[in-house]
């Protein structure tokens, strides 16, 4: 361009520009007519062309996409972004609340077949095992599989309310499982923390509703052994329904032993097992004692 202008202004080598162009034209014609070089160079060039074309296509696509995004984030799509953000926030909230249901003791997830319910157990603030029941939503409602221990009367509970009142069935199962977990916890704690008080092994059944053991109120002390038998007839309770404490010594029991025996019976009936022994450990056996939870 500059060349042309200068030429016209100075009025001199107009021919110079034209000649230049003519020379270029001649050269290109020559190149076109002449062979392009070795075949190797040719194929190299061809592959380069392909690569460049591919690159060009990719760039074009990217530009289109980027352009579309730029367009989208213009005007009222501020609203779209905001609503997306709001949706995202809502999603996080809902997810959090779903998590929170664990703390009611009963939670679950929808499955392709129906629902999988998770029952969490605890005893006095100690979180214990959880169990699941996988239900198939059909008529009749069916338990596909579960992790409820075999000695829990699942079939009985199901027969009573599974078909008529699902909620009642689940809460009833909750009661049974929590009670079992509580009884087991107490028995485990007695065995592990207060073994020194036991004169023999703790006898227990799988359901932990029948416990029998011989103990002394003082570990390895002079006290005579008592034999305790705890029966939890109601499977939804963690305190025994029947307690019998008998004197195991060979001598005739003195009145003080009788008093002790009666007080122990009362304690075992009203307080959790391991708390009773914790009281013994503190040297407290009296009836009037209020144990702190």
């Amino acid at each position, binding site marked *: 361009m500059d060349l042309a202008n200068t030429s016209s202004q100075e009025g001199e080598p107009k021919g110079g520009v034209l000649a230049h162009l003519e020379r270029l034209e001649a050269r290109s014609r020559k190149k076109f007519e002449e062979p392009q070089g070795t075949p190797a160079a040719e194929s190299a060039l061809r592959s380069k062309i392909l690569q460049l074309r591919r690159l060009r296509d990719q760039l074009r696509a990217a*530009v289109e*996409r980027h352009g579309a995004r730029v367009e989208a984030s213009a005007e009222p799509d501020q609203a779209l972004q905001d609503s997306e953000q709001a949706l995202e926030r*809502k*999603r996080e909230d809902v997810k959090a609340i779903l998590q929170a*249901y664990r*703390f009611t003791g009963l939670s679950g997830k929808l499955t392709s077949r129906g629902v999988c319910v998770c029952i969490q157990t605890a005893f*006095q*603030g*100690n*979180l214990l095992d959880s169990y699941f029941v996988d239900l198939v939503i059909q008529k009749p409602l069916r338990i596909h599989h579960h992790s409820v221990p075999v000695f829990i009367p699942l079939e009985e509970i199901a027969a009573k309310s599974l078909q008529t009142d699902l909620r009642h069935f689940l809460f009833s199962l909750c009661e049974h499982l929590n009670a079992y977990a509580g009884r087991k916890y107490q028995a485990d704690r007695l065995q592990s923390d207060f073994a020194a008080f036991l004169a023999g092994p703790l006898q227990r059944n799988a359901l932990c509703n029948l416990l029998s053991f011989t103990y002394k109120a003082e570990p390895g002390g002079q006290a005579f052994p008592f034999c305790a038998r705890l029966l939890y007839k109601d499977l939804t309770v963690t305190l025994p329904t029947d307690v019998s404490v008998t004197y195991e010594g060979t001598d005739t029991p003195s009145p003080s032993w009788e008093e002790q025996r009666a007080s122990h019976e009362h304690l075992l009936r009203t307080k959790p097992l391991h708390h009773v022994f914790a009281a013994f450990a503190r040297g407290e056996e009296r009836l009037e004692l209020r144990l702190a939870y």
Partner: protein
Amino acid sequence: MCIISFSTYDNPLRKSFPEICQSDPKEWKSSKDLRSNLGHLESELLFLSTLTDINIISYSKKTKNLTSTEMTEKSIKKVLQRHKLSGNCHMITFQVEFQILEVQNQENLSSVITDLNIIMEPTAYSELSEFVSRAEERRDLFMFFRSLHFFVEWCEYRKRTFKHFKEKYPEAVHLLEGASSSYMGIQSTSQPGFELVIVWRIQVDEEGKVLPKLDLLTKVPQQALELDKKGVIETAPLSFRTLLGVLGIEVAVESLIRLLCIEENH
């Protein structure tokens, strides 16, 4: 989430790609996907709230790591979680705050609720306030929810039963404090001096078990008492309890109403 990878070619748009690649992946999820995921989660939530009869409205959680360097050496991890949730179970709203201490060592994980605070409305249900303090004392969160569920279930059943009798015997049955109260009065229209009051309390025992407790109160004119040689009035409350055991609540109450309103046979 980079879409294009360049190796050797210099490209003027390269600078802007890292920006796009690093943008929040959630923004790339289409609005439609987000909506359908949210829909699924919401239906799960609806299912859980229907299943448990407990409606959780808000929940928040804060975690504090209490692991000391000494503990880390022994591969022990100690974490304190602070949870806050609020919601309602029918007419009763609750706000629960609790702390869970989680200790993880090589063998096992122990989770213990170390603090529990429960606020409930309405406080009108006096039976509940005692139960709430017991739950707080024992830090038994699950027992609280379980018993709350059963308590509300019994309350609803009591309300339905009272309402049913009021509708069936509108003249004879009186609900002075409404269907949500624990009292139902039965009065004979022909003998206005006689009145029976059924007191239906719902109690939560030491273990968190919810049990109905029904009693009968009698109001009888002095004259009638004098004529009552067999002492029927005196033994009425006891007989009622026996009747309850044999016939169940609804039938026992209905038979009482019929007894008092012989002329209003339906």
